[in-house]
């Protein structure tokens, strides 16, 4: 067996993984990126709409700053986020976007003078300032107070990913393509690389590394209706879970995007609504203002998705042979705007629906979109259960999204966290903890286990079909662990998944082809996906409240009193049928923004007494500093700068003032 030695092993070649790899490499550490597919085909490319960063350049973004971005993100998370990390994130986001601008991303720019925009179905004219001409512009997105989503037409993720990949190539970082990490090598709580399967040849090899970083994105494919790419099966999080050491957190926090094309689930960007698009029902009625008079179509994604499903349940959906859906109307934006700023949307409508969105309505229904949960990490990106293991991006629960992510915060997280985690990986490698003492015996032990498991599939006289079981899992997740959740159904889902996991040990392969055997791939990924699915289902069952995207119709209130907690899941023993859940409290008394009403969605929640106490305390602290600026106030409430690498600490310059 081939063993490859490197300083840093990054598993996943999307935006987050490549940014972290660049950071580590620039600090002088040999870095290898593993990717299931060519890096530029990673799912990051699918982010169409934008990246949130409080640049405050365009008129709609005037007055924006880290504080407002922070508030929006925490409210969006329904107070599930780690507020210190949100601060780190909002502070570094303008830096990340400016770095990418220098590296070559062709961000859309502010153009001086009059522009016609669509707000609330009405045309309005705004006039951009001369002073902002040529600076990076932003667009309106759900759940934000300012126009903050910086974009590149509607190919933001694509442009970012290509620039990032090109940068990684320039830095000489090898990307080993079509390689899948199937197990983490670890001993006594220290991770030291991964066992990897070459998807082209079927060969098993080992990568031994001082630091291993998981950046494999989300696990949307455990659902049937998902906007995710088909590679998003969560294998990185799953192999972390299988160590029995690393914890996953908030796995029940799964986001559903309001505008998945019906029925294929292909995403059309939130930019459609940000730019003025409307949601209509079977009668052509714009229903969102009835539910959300203030933010309307631009409430946060969890709220809009829920309202849409609620409206369909009320009999207002459009009936079709595939089921019911609603309409997205962007006709009012005009052909020119669509051709210029929503071209990918136009192409998707044209190719998959055969319609022209400038003239016709787009059939949409919420579909699984994002995994807020993932490998639980410290603010520096290191796993809380396994030393030497890091995680970044959607695969991680760094926790800026809590129970609901804002549109545009995901690509922002990838590059911001990538910047920060890349540095902390380098710090780790430089420190005494960085050195490893790995015997080839250990490596071979892990490799043998994988080889044995794979061989079992081809030898066993099982009766189950991997594709069928996968479909059953996806169906279960979509129908029982979806937007509206209920205790009974969740219990059924847990039982079904448990049963599927047992059956998955009895899979029979019809094809014994060597090399890249797609059926074998489905067979060995299935149990891992089932374990993730079980973390989601069991987490949802046990969380008897509604928070962000997690909505229990038997417990419709957010319950701060009992559930200011982050769910942690471990899979202690390989033979276990269920994960072991525990809870990590969120300390309200240390929050900069104590829990309250989000400003949209239900106002009804069970308050924790500490929330009022903390608010009083905050008022008192602010009152003692009459002459201080916002930065001083912030530092007094919840200092965070020391957690950032030194070069990311300076203040961000804006047009108005620092």
């Amino acid at each position, binding site marked *: 067996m081939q063993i490859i030695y490197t300083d840093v092993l990054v598993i996943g070649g999307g935006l987050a993984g490549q940014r972290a790899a660049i950071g580590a490499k620039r600090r002088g550490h040999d870095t290898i990126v593993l990717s299931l*597919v*060519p*890096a530029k*085909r*990673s*799912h990051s*490319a*699918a982010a169409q709409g934008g990246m949130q960063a409080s640049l405050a350049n365009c008129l709609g973004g005037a007055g924006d700053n880290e504080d407002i971005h922070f508030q929006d993100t925490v409210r969006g998370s329904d107070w599930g986020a780690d507020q210190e990390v949100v601060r780190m994130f909002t502070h570094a986001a*303008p830096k990340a*976007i*400016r*770095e990418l601008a*220098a590296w*070559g991303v*062709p*961000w*859309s*720019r502010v153009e001086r003078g009059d522009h016609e925009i669509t707000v609330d179905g009405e045309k309005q004219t705004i006039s951009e300032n001369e002073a902002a*001409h*040529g*600076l*990076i512009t932003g667009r309106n997105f759900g759940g934000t107070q300012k126009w903050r989503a910086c974009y*590149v037409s509607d*190919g933001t993720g*694509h*442009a970012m990913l*290509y620039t990032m990949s*090109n940068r990684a*190539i320039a830095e000489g970082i090898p*990307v080993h*393509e*079509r390689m899948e990490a199937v197990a983490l090598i670890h001993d006594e709580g220290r991770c030291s690389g991964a066992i990897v399967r070459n998807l*082209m*040849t079927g060969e098993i090899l080992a990568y031994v590394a001082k630091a291993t970083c998981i950046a494999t994105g989300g696990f949307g494919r455990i659902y049937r209706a998902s906007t995710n*790419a*088909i*590679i998003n099966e969560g294998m990185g999080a799953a192999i972390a879970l299988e160590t029995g050491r690393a914890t996953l957190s908030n796995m029940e926090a799964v986001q559903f995007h309001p505008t998945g094309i019906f*029925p*294929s689930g*292909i*995403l059309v960007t939130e930019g459609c609504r940000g730019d003025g698009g409307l949601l209509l029902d079977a009668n052509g009625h714009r229903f969102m203002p009835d539910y959300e008079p203030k933010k309307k179509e631009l409430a946060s994604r969890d709220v809009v998705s829920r309202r849409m499903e609620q409206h369909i349940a009320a009999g207002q959906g459009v009936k*079709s*042979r595939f089921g019911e859906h609603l*309409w997205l109307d962007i006709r009012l934006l005009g052909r020119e705007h669509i051709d210029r700023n929503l071209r*990918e949307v136009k192409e*998707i409508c044209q*190719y*998959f*629906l055969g319609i022209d969105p400038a003239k*016709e309505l787009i059939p949409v229904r919420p579909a699984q979109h994002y995994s807020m949960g993932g490998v639980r990490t410290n603010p520096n990106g290191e796993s809380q259960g396994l030393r030497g293991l890091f995680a970044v991006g959607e695969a991680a629960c760094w926790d800026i999204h809590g129970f609901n992510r804002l549109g545009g915060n995901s690509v922002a997280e990838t590059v911001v966290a990538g910047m920060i985690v890349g540095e902390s990986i380098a710090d780790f490698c430089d420190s005494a903890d960085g050195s490893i003492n790995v015997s080839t015996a250990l490596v071979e032990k892990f490799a043998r286990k994988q080889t044995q498991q794979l061989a079992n599939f081809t030898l066993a006289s099982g009766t189950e079909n991997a*594709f069928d079981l996968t479909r059953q899992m996806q169906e279960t997740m979509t129908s029982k662990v979806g937007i509206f959740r209920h205790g009974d159904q969740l219990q059924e889902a847990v039982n079904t998944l448990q049963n599927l996991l047992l059956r998955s040990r009895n899979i029979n392969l019809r*094809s*014994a*082809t*060597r*090399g*890249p055997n*797609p059926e074998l791939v489905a067979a060995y990924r299935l149990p891992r996906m089932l374990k993730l699915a079980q973390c989601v289902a069991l987490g949802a069952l046990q969380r008897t409240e509604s928070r962000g995207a997690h909505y229990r119709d038997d417990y419709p209130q957010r319950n701060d009193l009992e559930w200011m907690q982050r769910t942690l899941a471990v899979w202690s023993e390989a033979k276990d049928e269920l994960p072991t859940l525990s809870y990590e409290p969120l300390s309200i008394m240390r929050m900069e923004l104590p829990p309250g009403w989000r400003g949209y969605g239900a106002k009804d929640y069970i308050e924790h007494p500490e929330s009022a106490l903390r608010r009083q305390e905050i008022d008192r602290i602010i009152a003692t500093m009459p002459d201080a600026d916002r930065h001083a106030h912030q530092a007094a409430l919840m200092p965070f700068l020391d957690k950032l690498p030194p070069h990311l600490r300076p203040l961000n*310059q*804006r047009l108005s003032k620092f």
Partner: protein
Amino acid sequence: MNNIPLAEEHRMLQIQILRHNPSALLCDSDKGSHLQTFEVEEALGMTLFIALNEIREEQDPSLQFDFVCRAGICGSCGMIINGRPGLACRTLTKDLPDVIVLAPLPGFELIGDLSVNTGKWMRGMSEHLETWVHNQELEEINIDVIEERMEPRLAEQIYELERCIECGCCIAACGTTQMREEFVGAAGLNQIARFRLDPRDKRSDADYYELIGNDAGVFGCMTLLGCEDMCPKNLPLATQIAFLRRRMAMTTG
């Protein structure tokens, strides 16, 4: 208006796939390269993505092909569809005849069946043409201050060329690359056009000439225009190549 077409139409499609598994050659009963026919009942809104997955799940689990985003944006699923390169995920079967012949993209290393190693080719192209912003000062950029300005129109023009998804269709559609493997193709030339347009890249025409001023570069293009006609993203490839040809022919060193 606005209804998903409800026409009931259930053709039986004959999908003929060029099968070949190079890594299985050493063993088993490999039949070498051959055309295998699968029958699939057409469904409403069926794409080749759906049809191929159905074949794999129900008829032949060893069938290899590549899909990632299945939404026409990642460029993984380029293949030859009835003679012409295209993205399989967004090709609707209703636009195709009863017999559909699928083959892997030529010009790339074959992994197996319909799966080819476009990633390796594209990475090689990127390394060879150095498709990144070259700027001596990049190491010292200050990311705390307001970014450099750029004309909005210019940003749009750069994005226009940045839209390439490296699917390889232009390479498969190009007679020149089919004959001469060293030719960088439209995908490569478009990258040079993109960085040449970008004021952040400080390279001069002489620098670009060193990369593409030869018969493996812009002067190798014989203007067969297959790239322009078969680009799934409708990139203005012929315009860009003509532009580069003029600039490179005028370069004096």
